[in-house]
Protein backbone atom coordinates (compact mmCIF):
# COMPACT_ATOMS: atom_id res chain seq x y z
CA UNK A 1 0.00 0.00 0.00
CA UNK A 2 3.07 2.24 0.18
CA UNK A 3 2.75 2.92 -3.53
CA UNK A 4 -0.41 4.97 -3.55
CA UNK A 5 0.45 6.90 -0.39
CA UNK A 6 1.47 10.55 -0.89
CA UNK A 7 5.17 11.48 -0.65
CA UNK A 8 4.64 13.39 2.56
CA UNK A 9 3.54 10.24 4.38
CA UNK A 10 6.69 8.38 3.43
CA UNK A 11 8.76 11.41 4.33
CA UNK A 12 7.25 11.80 7.78
CA UNK A 13 7.36 8.08 8.46
CA UNK A 14 11.06 8.39 7.93
CA UNK A 15 11.24 11.34 10.26
CA UNK A 16 9.22 9.52 12.88
CA UNK A 17 11.44 6.42 12.67
CA UNK A 18 14.54 8.60 13.05
CA UNK A 19 13.08 10.15 16.15
CA UNK A 20 11.89 6.81 17.49
CA UNK A 21 15.41 5.37 17.35
CA UNK A 22 16.81 8.33 19.23
CA UNK A 23 14.25 8.41 22.04
CA UNK A 24 12.67 6.33 24.78
CA UNK A 25 9.15 5.17 23.97
CA UNK A 26 7.72 7.40 26.70
CA UNK A 27 9.55 10.41 25.33
CA UNK A 28 8.46 9.47 21.83
CA UNK A 29 4.82 9.35 22.84
CA UNK A 30 5.06 12.68 24.58
CA UNK A 31 6.54 14.23 21.44
CA UNK A 32 3.94 12.60 19.22
CA UNK A 33 1.32 13.98 21.57
CA UNK A 34 2.79 17.43 21.56
CA UNK A 35 3.19 17.21 17.82
CA UNK A 36 -0.41 16.28 17.26
CA UNK A 37 -1.72 19.30 19.02
CA UNK A 38 0.97 21.51 17.65
CA UNK A 39 -0.52 20.49 14.35
CA UNK A 40 -3.91 21.33 15.73
CA UNK A 41 -2.68 24.88 15.96
CA UNK A 42 -3.21 24.75 12.19
CA UNK A 43 -6.89 23.88 12.50
CA UNK A 44 -7.47 23.46 8.78
CA UNK A 45 -5.33 20.37 8.71
CA UNK A 46 -7.26 18.21 11.19
CA UNK A 47 -10.56 19.59 9.95
CA UNK A 48 -9.74 18.40 6.47
CA UNK A 49 -8.57 15.11 7.88
CA UNK A 50 -11.76 14.65 9.87
CA UNK A 51 -13.65 14.89 6.63
CA UNK A 52 -11.45 12.56 4.62
CA UNK A 53 -10.47 10.06 7.32
CA UNK A 54 -11.61 6.49 6.78
CA UNK A 55 -10.55 3.80 9.22
CA UNK A 56 -8.15 1.29 7.66
CA UNK A 57 -7.76 -1.09 10.57
CA UNK A 58 -10.31 -1.74 13.32
CA UNK A 59 -9.50 -0.49 16.83
CA UNK A 60 -8.58 -3.21 19.36
CA UNK A 61 -11.33 -5.70 20.13
CA UNK A 62 -13.25 -4.81 23.31
CA UNK A 63 -15.73 -7.67 23.02
CA UNK A 64 -13.65 -9.98 25.21
CA UNK A 65 -13.08 -7.38 27.94
CA UNK A 66 -14.82 -8.15 31.21
CA UNK A 67 -16.82 -5.48 33.05
CA UNK A 68 -16.09 -1.78 33.32
CA UNK A 69 -12.78 -1.73 31.38
CA UNK A 70 -14.81 -2.75 28.30
CA UNK A 71 -17.80 -0.48 28.94
CA UNK A 72 -17.66 2.91 27.15
CA UNK A 73 -20.23 4.31 29.63
CA UNK A 74 -17.84 3.58 32.50
CA UNK A 75 -15.08 5.88 33.72
CA UNK A 76 -12.96 2.75 34.02
CA UNK A 77 -13.20 2.05 30.26
CA UNK A 78 -9.64 1.49 29.02
CA UNK A 79 -9.68 4.41 26.58
CA UNK A 80 -10.56 6.90 29.33
CA UNK A 81 -7.16 6.91 31.05
CA UNK A 82 -6.64 10.66 30.49
CA UNK A 83 -10.18 11.99 30.01
CA UNK A 84 -11.80 14.75 32.05
CA UNK A 85 -15.41 15.50 31.25
CA UNK A 86 -18.73 13.81 30.56
CA UNK A 87 -18.68 10.56 28.61
CA UNK A 88 -20.47 10.93 25.27
CA UNK A 89 -21.58 7.30 25.49
CA UNK A 90 -23.91 8.47 28.28
CA UNK A 91 -25.03 11.59 26.39
CA UNK A 92 -26.45 10.24 23.14
CA UNK A 93 -23.13 9.52 21.47
CA UNK A 94 -20.60 6.72 21.84
CA UNK A 95 -16.92 6.31 22.72
CA UNK A 96 -16.03 7.64 19.27
CA UNK A 97 -19.10 9.57 18.03
CA UNK A 98 -20.75 12.79 19.19
CA UNK A 99 -24.42 13.05 20.21
CA UNK A 100 -26.97 14.65 17.88
CA UNK A 101 -26.96 18.43 18.05
CA UNK A 102 -23.22 18.70 18.61
CA UNK A 103 -20.10 19.11 16.49
CA UNK A 104 -16.86 17.24 17.10
CA UNK A 105 -13.84 19.42 17.68
CA UNK A 106 -11.04 18.48 15.28
CA UNK A 107 -8.47 19.72 17.79
CA UNK A 108 -7.75 17.38 20.65
CA UNK A 109 -5.67 16.43 23.61
CA UNK A 110 -3.85 13.16 23.71
CA UNK A 111 -3.57 10.23 26.04
CA UNK A 112 -1.77 6.93 25.85
CA UNK A 113 -3.81 4.05 27.21
CA UNK A 114 -3.00 0.35 27.41
CA UNK A 115 -5.61 -2.05 26.07
CA UNK A 116 -6.19 -4.73 28.72
CA UNK A 117 -6.82 -7.30 25.98
CA UNK A 118 -3.77 -7.10 23.73
CA UNK A 119 -1.56 -5.26 26.24
CA UNK A 120 -0.54 -2.71 23.61
CA UNK A 121 -0.45 1.08 24.14
CA UNK A 122 -2.71 3.17 21.96
CA UNK A 123 -2.66 6.88 21.24
CA UNK A 124 -6.10 8.15 22.25
CA UNK A 125 -7.49 11.37 20.86
CA UNK A 126 -9.96 12.95 23.27
CA UNK A 127 -12.27 15.10 21.17
CA UNK A 128 -14.87 17.35 22.74
CA UNK A 129 -18.38 17.41 21.32
CA UNK A 130 -19.38 21.04 21.11
CA UNK A 131 -22.46 23.22 20.74
CA UNK A 132 -24.61 22.13 23.70
CA UNK A 133 -24.32 22.90 27.41
CA UNK A 134 -22.71 20.39 29.78
CA UNK A 135 -24.27 16.92 29.49
CA UNK A 136 -23.83 16.29 33.22
CA UNK A 137 -24.00 12.50 32.92
CA UNK A 138 -21.14 10.07 33.59
CA UNK A 139 -18.65 12.64 34.81
CA UNK A 140 -15.18 11.12 34.57
CA UNK A 141 -11.83 12.56 35.59
CA UNK A 142 -8.69 10.51 34.97
CA UNK A 143 -5.24 12.00 34.71
CA UNK A 144 -2.75 9.32 33.66
CA UNK A 145 0.05 11.28 32.01
CA UNK A 146 -2.04 14.45 32.15
CA UNK A 147 -0.10 17.75 32.29
CA UNK A 148 -0.89 21.37 33.21
CA UNK A 149 -2.45 23.89 30.83
CA UNK A 150 0.91 25.19 29.50
CA UNK A 151 1.61 21.64 28.25
CA UNK A 152 -1.42 22.10 26.03
CA UNK A 153 -1.34 18.86 24.07
CA UNK A 154 -1.52 16.78 27.24
CA UNK A 155 -3.95 18.89 29.23
CA UNK A 156 -7.58 17.91 29.84
CA UNK A 157 -8.62 21.03 31.79
CA UNK A 158 -9.07 22.97 28.56
CA UNK A 159 -12.38 23.29 26.71
CA UNK A 160 -11.18 21.63 23.51
CA UNK A 161 -13.84 23.15 21.30
CA UNK A 162 -11.69 24.82 18.66
CA UNK A 163 -12.54 25.23 15.00
CA UNK A 164 -16.16 24.54 15.91
CA UNK A 165 -19.12 26.90 15.55
CA UNK A 166 -19.48 27.04 19.33
CA UNK A 167 -17.03 26.89 22.23
CA UNK A 168 -19.68 25.25 24.41
CA UNK A 169 -18.55 21.79 25.53
CA UNK A 170 -21.08 18.99 26.00
CA UNK A 171 -19.15 15.73 26.36
CA UNK A 172 -15.92 14.01 25.29
CA UNK A 173 -15.13 11.00 23.10
CA UNK A 174 -12.02 8.79 23.13
CA UNK A 175 -10.86 7.84 19.63
CA UNK A 176 -8.07 5.38 18.89
CA UNK A 177 -5.65 7.30 16.68
CA UNK A 178 -3.11 4.56 16.36
CA UNK A 179 -0.81 2.12 18.06
CA UNK A 180 1.74 3.97 20.18
CA UNK A 181 4.59 1.58 19.37
CA UNK A 182 5.81 0.97 15.83
CA UNK A 183 5.31 -2.65 14.80
Amino acid sequence: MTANRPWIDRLVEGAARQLARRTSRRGMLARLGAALVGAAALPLLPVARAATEDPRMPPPDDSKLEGAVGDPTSCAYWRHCAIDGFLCACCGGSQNACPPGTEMSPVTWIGTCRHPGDGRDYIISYNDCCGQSLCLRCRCTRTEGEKPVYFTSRNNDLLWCFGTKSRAVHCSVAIVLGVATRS
Partner: protein
Amino acid sequence: MRIRLLVLLLALAAARAGSAAEAVGTVLSLPARPGAHWFWLSDILLHRTALFDADSGSLLGTITSGSPGVGFVIAPLFSPDHREIYLAETYYSRGVRGERTDVVTVYDASTLLPVAEVEIPPHRAEYFPGNAANALSDDGRFMAVFDLTPATSVSIVDVQERRLTTEIRTPGCSLVYAAGPRRFLMLCSNGAALSVTLDEQGREARLERSAPFFDPEQDPLTEKAVRRGDEWLFVSFAGVVHSVDVGGEVLRFGAPWSLLDDADRRASWRIGGGQHLAVHAATGRLYVLVHQGGPDTHKEPGTEVWVYDLQSRRRVQRIAMLSPLASFVGQQLAAAGRPRAAGFAEWLIAKATPNPGVDRILVTQDEHPVLVASASMPPTVTIHDALTGEVVREIAEPGLAASLLFAP
Protein backbone atom coordinates in the same frame (compact mmCIF):
# COMPACT_ATOMS: atom_id res chain seq x y z
CA MET B 1 9.36 27.70 11.65
CA ARG B 2 11.49 24.57 11.63
CA ILE B 3 9.67 23.52 14.81
CA ARG B 4 6.33 24.14 13.13
CA LEU B 5 7.31 21.93 10.18
CA LEU B 6 8.50 19.05 12.38
CA VAL B 7 5.24 19.38 14.32
CA LEU B 8 3.22 19.11 11.15
CA LEU B 9 5.21 16.13 9.90
CA LEU B 10 4.90 14.26 13.18
CA ALA B 11 1.19 14.96 13.28
CA LEU B 12 0.80 13.16 9.98
CA ALA B 13 3.14 10.47 11.18
CA ALA B 14 1.01 9.74 14.20
CA ALA B 15 -2.24 9.78 12.30
CA ARG B 16 -1.11 7.75 9.27
CA ALA B 17 1.98 5.74 10.11
CA GLY B 18 0.19 4.80 13.37
CA SER B 19 -1.92 2.76 10.95
CA ALA B 20 -4.93 1.94 13.20
CA ALA B 21 -7.37 4.80 13.03
CA GLU B 22 -11.04 5.35 13.82
CA ALA B 23 -12.93 8.08 11.97
CA VAL B 24 -12.72 11.51 13.58
CA GLY B 25 -15.70 13.85 13.35
CA THR B 26 -18.58 11.39 13.46
CA VAL B 27 -21.79 12.89 14.85
CA LEU B 28 -24.85 10.71 15.39
CA SER B 29 -28.35 11.67 14.30
CA LEU B 30 -31.77 10.39 15.29
CA PRO B 31 -34.07 8.16 13.21
CA ALA B 32 -36.80 9.89 11.19
CA ARG B 33 -39.56 8.59 13.44
CA PRO B 34 -39.43 8.87 17.26
CA GLY B 35 -39.49 5.68 19.31
CA ALA B 36 -42.75 4.73 20.97
CA HIS B 37 -41.33 5.33 24.44
CA TRP B 38 -39.25 8.46 23.83
CA PHE B 39 -39.83 11.49 26.01
CA TRP B 40 -38.31 14.94 26.45
CA LEU B 41 -37.46 16.36 29.88
CA SER B 42 -36.70 20.08 30.21
CA ASP B 43 -34.29 21.38 32.85
CA ILE B 44 -34.12 25.03 33.94
CA LEU B 45 -30.67 24.81 35.56
CA LEU B 46 -29.06 22.95 32.66
CA HIS B 47 -30.95 25.23 30.26
CA ARG B 48 -31.92 22.35 28.01
CA THR B 49 -34.54 19.87 27.02
CA ALA B 50 -33.23 16.30 26.86
CA LEU B 51 -34.54 13.32 24.90
CA PHE B 52 -34.64 9.98 26.73
CA ASP B 53 -35.63 6.49 25.62
CA ALA B 54 -37.69 4.88 28.39
CA ASP B 55 -36.89 1.43 26.99
CA SER B 56 -33.11 1.71 27.33
CA GLY B 57 -33.02 4.46 29.95
CA SER B 58 -30.46 6.27 27.82
CA LEU B 59 -30.19 9.94 26.93
CA LEU B 60 -30.44 10.30 23.14
CA GLY B 61 -29.65 14.00 22.76
CA THR B 62 -30.24 17.48 24.10
CA ILE B 63 -31.19 20.94 22.88
CA THR B 64 -29.73 23.82 24.89
CA SER B 65 -32.19 26.69 25.17
CA GLY B 66 -32.24 29.96 27.09
CA SER B 67 -29.74 31.49 29.48
CA PRO B 68 -29.01 31.64 33.21
CA GLY B 69 -31.88 33.38 35.04
CA VAL B 70 -34.05 33.56 31.92
CA GLY B 71 -35.51 30.68 29.94
CA PHE B 72 -37.76 29.03 32.53
CA VAL B 73 -40.15 27.94 29.81
CA ILE B 74 -38.44 25.31 27.66
CA ALA B 75 -41.45 23.78 25.91
CA PRO B 76 -40.71 22.03 22.60
CA LEU B 77 -43.47 21.61 20.01
CA PHE B 78 -43.28 18.89 17.38
CA SER B 79 -44.36 19.13 13.75
CA PRO B 80 -46.97 16.50 12.79
CA ASP B 81 -44.48 14.87 10.40
CA HIS B 82 -41.88 14.65 13.23
CA ARG B 83 -39.34 16.45 11.06
CA GLU B 84 -39.05 19.63 13.10
CA ILE B 85 -39.03 20.87 16.68
CA TYR B 86 -40.12 24.42 17.57
CA LEU B 87 -38.83 26.24 20.65
CA ALA B 88 -39.65 29.75 21.84
CA GLU B 89 -36.50 31.21 23.41
CA THR B 90 -35.31 34.41 25.06
CA TYR B 91 -31.74 35.68 24.91
CA TYR B 92 -29.89 38.70 26.23
CA SER B 93 -26.80 39.97 24.46
CA ARG B 94 -24.84 39.61 27.72
CA GLY B 95 -26.36 36.63 29.50
CA VAL B 96 -28.65 38.24 32.10
CA ARG B 97 -28.31 41.77 30.74
CA GLY B 98 -28.04 43.78 27.54
CA GLU B 99 -30.39 43.64 24.61
CA ARG B 100 -33.26 41.15 24.75
CA THR B 101 -34.24 39.04 21.76
CA ASP B 102 -37.13 36.58 21.69
CA VAL B 103 -37.18 34.00 18.93
CA VAL B 104 -38.88 30.85 17.78
CA THR B 105 -36.09 28.51 16.76
CA VAL B 106 -36.78 25.66 14.35
CA TYR B 107 -34.65 22.57 15.03
CA ASP B 108 -34.18 19.57 12.76
CA ALA B 109 -35.66 16.66 14.73
CA SER B 110 -32.98 14.20 13.62
CA THR B 111 -29.83 16.35 13.87
CA LEU B 112 -31.21 18.56 16.70
CA LEU B 113 -29.47 21.47 14.97
CA PRO B 114 -31.17 24.84 14.42
CA VAL B 115 -32.36 25.28 10.83
CA ALA B 116 -34.31 28.54 11.09
CA GLU B 117 -35.08 31.36 13.48
CA VAL B 118 -38.09 33.67 13.60
CA GLU B 119 -37.84 36.77 15.77
CA ILE B 120 -40.96 37.44 17.85
CA PRO B 121 -41.98 40.35 20.10
CA PRO B 122 -39.89 40.31 23.33
CA HIS B 123 -43.00 39.59 25.39
CA ARG B 124 -42.80 35.82 26.12
CA ALA B 125 -44.31 34.82 29.43
CA GLU B 126 -41.80 33.20 31.76
CA TYR B 127 -43.04 31.01 34.59
CA PHE B 128 -42.33 27.70 36.25
CA PRO B 129 -42.81 24.97 35.22
CA GLY B 130 -44.31 26.49 32.06
CA ASN B 131 -47.45 24.50 31.23
CA ALA B 132 -49.43 25.71 28.19
CA ALA B 133 -46.89 28.38 27.24
CA ASN B 134 -46.94 27.53 23.52
CA ALA B 135 -49.21 25.62 21.16
CA LEU B 136 -49.17 24.42 17.57
CA SER B 137 -52.33 24.56 15.45
CA ASP B 138 -53.75 21.11 14.75
CA ASP B 139 -52.49 21.22 11.16
CA GLY B 140 -48.99 22.16 12.33
CA ARG B 141 -48.92 25.45 10.44
CA PHE B 142 -49.19 28.13 13.13
CA MET B 143 -47.43 28.34 16.49
CA ALA B 144 -48.88 30.49 19.25
CA VAL B 145 -46.58 31.88 21.95
CA PHE B 146 -48.21 33.13 25.16
CA ASP B 147 -46.98 36.63 26.10
CA LEU B 148 -47.23 38.35 29.47
CA THR B 149 -45.69 41.76 30.18
CA PRO B 150 -47.92 41.65 32.47
CA ALA B 151 -50.41 42.60 29.78
CA THR B 152 -51.36 39.37 27.97
CA SER B 153 -51.25 38.50 24.28
CA VAL B 154 -50.30 35.71 21.90
CA SER B 155 -47.68 35.97 19.16
CA ILE B 156 -48.44 33.88 16.08
CA VAL B 157 -45.66 32.36 13.98
CA ASP B 158 -46.19 30.67 10.61
CA VAL B 159 -43.67 27.88 11.12
CA GLN B 160 -43.89 26.78 7.48
CA GLU B 161 -43.27 30.26 6.07
CA ARG B 162 -40.88 30.97 8.97
CA ARG B 163 -42.44 34.33 9.79
CA LEU B 164 -44.28 36.18 12.53
CA THR B 165 -47.83 36.84 11.36
CA THR B 166 -49.24 38.92 14.24
CA GLU B 167 -49.44 39.57 17.97
CA ILE B 168 -53.00 39.42 19.31
CA ARG B 169 -53.91 41.24 22.53
CA THR B 170 -55.92 39.00 24.89
CA PRO B 171 -56.72 41.19 27.91
CA GLY B 172 -57.35 39.18 31.08
CA CYS B 173 -56.77 35.84 29.34
CA SER B 174 -53.65 33.68 29.62
CA LEU B 175 -51.98 30.44 28.53
CA VAL B 176 -52.59 28.84 25.14
CA TYR B 177 -54.01 25.47 24.03
CA ALA B 178 -54.44 24.13 20.50
CA ALA B 179 -58.12 23.99 19.54
CA GLY B 180 -58.31 23.18 15.84
CA PRO B 181 -56.42 24.01 12.67
CA ARG B 182 -57.01 27.75 13.04
CA ARG B 183 -58.03 28.14 16.66
CA PHE B 184 -56.38 28.42 20.06
CA LEU B 185 -57.94 28.35 23.51
CA MET B 186 -57.01 30.56 26.47
CA LEU B 187 -58.19 30.80 30.10
CA CYS B 188 -59.38 34.11 31.53
CA SER B 189 -59.11 35.44 35.07
CA ASN B 190 -62.92 35.45 35.42
CA GLY B 191 -63.21 31.74 34.65
CA ALA B 192 -64.15 32.17 31.01
CA ALA B 193 -62.47 30.63 27.97
CA LEU B 194 -61.22 32.80 25.13
CA SER B 195 -61.08 31.24 21.68
CA VAL B 196 -58.67 32.92 19.29
CA THR B 197 -59.43 32.16 15.66
CA LEU B 198 -56.94 32.84 12.87
CA ASP B 199 -57.43 33.38 9.17
CA GLU B 200 -55.46 31.54 6.49
CA GLN B 201 -52.63 34.07 6.79
CA GLY B 202 -52.41 33.53 10.53
CA ARG B 203 -53.88 36.93 11.31
CA GLU B 204 -56.58 37.51 13.90
CA ALA B 205 -59.98 36.41 12.50
CA ARG B 206 -62.00 36.74 15.72
CA LEU B 207 -61.85 36.50 19.51
CA GLU B 208 -64.74 34.87 21.36
CA ARG B 209 -65.15 34.89 25.12
CA SER B 210 -67.27 32.10 26.60
CA ALA B 211 -69.38 32.52 29.71
CA PRO B 212 -67.36 31.67 32.83
CA PHE B 213 -67.27 27.87 33.18
CA PHE B 214 -65.40 27.67 36.49
CA ASP B 215 -64.85 29.80 39.60
CA PRO B 216 -61.22 30.98 39.79
CA GLU B 217 -61.79 32.30 43.30
CA GLN B 218 -63.45 29.29 44.94
CA ASP B 219 -62.05 26.36 42.96
CA PRO B 220 -59.65 27.33 40.16
CA LEU B 221 -58.69 24.98 37.34
CA THR B 222 -55.00 24.25 37.05
CA GLU B 223 -53.31 25.08 33.73
CA LYS B 224 -51.97 21.52 33.61
CA ALA B 225 -54.58 20.15 31.21
CA VAL B 226 -54.28 17.15 28.88
CA ARG B 227 -55.91 16.59 25.52
CA ARG B 228 -57.66 13.48 24.22
CA GLY B 229 -58.83 13.89 20.64
CA ASP B 230 -61.01 16.99 20.54
CA GLU B 231 -61.42 17.10 24.29
CA TRP B 232 -59.28 19.09 26.72
CA LEU B 233 -59.41 17.80 30.28
CA PHE B 234 -58.82 20.32 33.07
CA VAL B 235 -58.87 19.54 36.77
CA SER B 236 -59.55 21.94 39.65
CA PHE B 237 -57.68 22.31 42.95
CA ALA B 238 -60.52 20.31 44.52
CA GLY B 239 -60.19 17.52 41.95
CA VAL B 240 -63.17 18.36 39.74
CA VAL B 241 -62.71 17.54 36.05
CA HIS B 242 -63.92 20.16 33.54
CA SER B 243 -63.82 19.14 29.89
CA VAL B 244 -63.79 21.46 26.89
CA ASP B 245 -64.64 20.00 23.46
CA VAL B 246 -62.87 21.91 20.69
CA GLY B 247 -64.18 19.75 17.84
CA GLY B 248 -67.02 22.00 16.75
CA GLU B 249 -67.59 25.56 15.64
CA VAL B 250 -68.28 26.59 19.24
CA LEU B 251 -66.59 25.28 22.37
CA ARG B 252 -68.66 22.73 24.30
CA PHE B 253 -68.17 22.45 28.05
CA GLY B 254 -68.84 19.04 29.59
CA ALA B 255 -70.57 18.53 32.93
CA PRO B 256 -67.93 18.68 35.69
CA TRP B 257 -67.27 15.46 37.63
CA SER B 258 -65.16 14.79 40.67
CA LEU B 259 -62.08 12.58 40.89
CA LEU B 260 -62.48 12.35 44.64
CA ASP B 261 -65.23 10.82 46.75
CA ASP B 262 -66.02 11.62 50.38
CA ALA B 263 -63.65 8.95 51.65
CA ASP B 264 -60.83 10.40 49.55
CA ARG B 265 -61.61 13.89 50.82
CA ARG B 266 -61.75 12.71 54.43
CA ALA B 267 -58.28 11.25 53.92
CA SER B 268 -57.41 14.68 52.40
CA TRP B 269 -56.22 13.30 49.09
CA ARG B 270 -55.57 16.12 46.62
CA ILE B 271 -54.14 16.64 43.18
CA GLY B 272 -50.76 18.34 43.08
CA GLY B 273 -47.42 18.77 41.35
CA GLY B 274 -46.11 20.62 38.32
CA GLN B 275 -47.59 18.25 35.73
CA HIS B 276 -50.24 16.19 37.45
CA LEU B 277 -52.38 14.91 34.55
CA ALA B 278 -51.72 12.39 31.80
CA VAL B 279 -54.08 10.52 29.50
CA HIS B 280 -53.81 7.41 27.34
CA ALA B 281 -56.12 8.24 24.44
CA ALA B 282 -56.74 4.72 23.07
CA THR B 283 -57.81 3.17 26.39
CA GLY B 284 -59.35 6.34 27.83
CA ARG B 285 -57.31 6.05 30.99
CA LEU B 286 -56.73 9.33 32.87
CA TYR B 287 -53.67 9.44 35.15
CA VAL B 288 -53.74 11.85 38.09
CA LEU B 289 -50.87 12.63 40.46
CA VAL B 290 -52.20 12.84 44.04
CA HIS B 291 -50.92 13.38 47.58
CA GLN B 292 -52.38 13.77 51.07
CA GLY B 293 -52.28 17.40 52.17
CA GLY B 294 -54.21 20.44 53.32
CA PRO B 295 -55.92 23.15 51.25
CA ASP B 296 -53.69 25.14 48.86
CA THR B 297 -51.20 22.27 48.50
CA HIS B 298 -51.61 22.23 44.72
CA LYS B 299 -47.83 22.34 44.19
CA GLU B 300 -47.08 19.46 46.53
CA PRO B 301 -45.52 16.43 44.82
CA GLY B 302 -47.58 13.26 44.52
CA THR B 303 -47.02 9.94 46.25
CA GLU B 304 -49.53 8.04 44.11
CA VAL B 305 -50.92 8.13 40.59
CA TRP B 306 -54.64 7.36 40.43
CA VAL B 307 -55.95 5.98 37.16
CA TYR B 308 -59.52 6.69 36.00
CA ASP B 309 -61.58 5.18 33.22
CA LEU B 310 -62.96 8.18 31.35
CA GLN B 311 -65.98 6.13 30.21
CA SER B 312 -67.20 5.07 33.63
CA ARG B 313 -65.47 7.99 35.41
CA ARG B 314 -64.41 5.47 38.02
CA ARG B 315 -60.98 5.08 39.56
CA VAL B 316 -59.67 1.77 38.27
CA GLN B 317 -56.13 1.72 39.67
CA ARG B 318 -53.74 3.21 42.23
CA ILE B 319 -50.04 3.27 41.39
CA ALA B 320 -47.58 4.02 44.22
CA MET B 321 -44.68 6.26 43.29
CA LEU B 322 -41.16 5.30 44.36
CA SER B 323 -39.53 7.59 46.90
CA PRO B 324 -37.10 9.74 44.85
CA LEU B 325 -34.92 9.96 47.94
CA ALA B 326 -34.60 6.18 48.07
CA SER B 327 -33.99 5.97 44.31
CA PHE B 328 -31.39 8.74 44.36
CA VAL B 329 -29.34 7.36 47.25
CA GLY B 330 -29.60 3.89 45.75
CA GLN B 331 -28.34 5.13 42.39
CA GLN B 332 -25.44 6.99 44.02
CA LEU B 333 -24.35 3.86 45.84
CA ALA B 334 -24.81 1.68 42.76
CA ALA B 335 -22.73 4.13 40.71
CA ALA B 336 -20.08 3.89 43.43
CA GLY B 337 -20.08 0.13 42.75
CA ARG B 338 -21.96 -0.86 45.89
CA PRO B 339 -25.05 -2.66 44.49
CA ARG B 340 -25.90 -4.51 47.71
CA ALA B 341 -25.57 -1.40 49.87
CA ALA B 342 -27.73 0.35 47.26
CA GLY B 343 -30.51 -2.20 47.56
CA PHE B 344 -30.43 -2.03 51.33
CA ALA B 345 -30.37 1.78 51.44
CA GLU B 346 -33.32 2.01 49.02
CA TRP B 347 -35.30 -0.40 51.15
CA LEU B 348 -34.37 1.33 54.42
CA ILE B 349 -35.08 4.89 53.22
CA ALA B 350 -38.38 3.85 51.66
CA LYS B 351 -39.35 2.30 54.98
CA ALA B 352 -37.95 4.91 57.37
CA THR B 353 -38.54 8.27 55.68
CA PRO B 354 -41.65 9.89 54.17
CA ASN B 355 -41.87 9.78 50.37
CA PRO B 356 -41.05 13.28 49.03
CA GLY B 357 -43.14 12.41 45.99
CA VAL B 358 -42.85 13.06 42.27
CA ASP B 359 -43.63 16.34 40.48
CA ARG B 360 -44.61 15.36 36.94
CA ILE B 361 -46.00 12.47 34.94
CA LEU B 362 -46.35 11.55 31.27
CA VAL B 363 -47.94 8.57 29.51
CA THR B 364 -46.95 7.41 26.02
CA GLN B 365 -49.67 6.75 23.41
CA ASP B 366 -48.65 3.35 22.04
CA GLU B 367 -50.51 0.16 22.92
CA HIS B 368 -47.93 -0.87 25.51
CA PRO B 369 -47.68 2.56 27.15
CA VAL B 370 -45.20 3.56 29.85
CA LEU B 371 -45.81 6.02 32.67
CA VAL B 372 -42.87 8.39 33.18
CA ALA B 373 -42.62 9.80 36.72
CA SER B 374 -40.14 12.61 37.31
CA ALA B 375 -39.19 14.01 40.73
CA SER B 376 -37.39 17.24 41.64
CA MET B 377 -36.07 16.69 45.14
CA PRO B 378 -33.90 14.80 44.54
CA PRO B 379 -33.96 14.63 40.73
CA THR B 380 -35.02 11.16 39.56
CA VAL B 381 -36.98 9.58 36.71
CA THR B 382 -38.85 6.30 37.14
CA ILE B 383 -40.49 4.34 34.32
CA HIS B 384 -43.66 2.35 35.11
CA ASP B 385 -45.70 0.05 32.93
CA ALA B 386 -48.68 2.36 32.39
CA LEU B 387 -51.14 -0.56 32.38
CA THR B 388 -49.89 -2.73 35.25
CA GLY B 389 -48.25 0.13 37.13
CA GLU B 390 -45.15 -1.87 37.93
CA VAL B 391 -41.74 -0.20 37.90
CA VAL B 392 -39.86 -1.06 34.72
CA ARG B 393 -36.69 0.97 35.26
CA GLU B 394 -35.08 3.98 36.90
CA ILE B 395 -33.10 6.47 34.82
CA ALA B 396 -29.96 7.76 36.55
CA GLU B 397 -28.64 11.33 36.22
CA PRO B 398 -31.70 12.82 34.48
CA GLY B 399 -30.53 16.38 35.22
CA LEU B 400 -30.67 18.98 37.98
CA ALA B 401 -33.95 20.92 37.90
CA ALA B 402 -36.62 19.29 35.77
CA SER B 403 -39.60 21.40 34.71
CA LEU B 404 -41.85 19.53 32.25
CA LEU B 405 -42.15 16.26 30.33
CA PHE B 406 -43.06 16.21 26.63
CA ALA B 407 -43.92 13.40 24.20
CA PRO B 408 -42.45 13.87 20.68
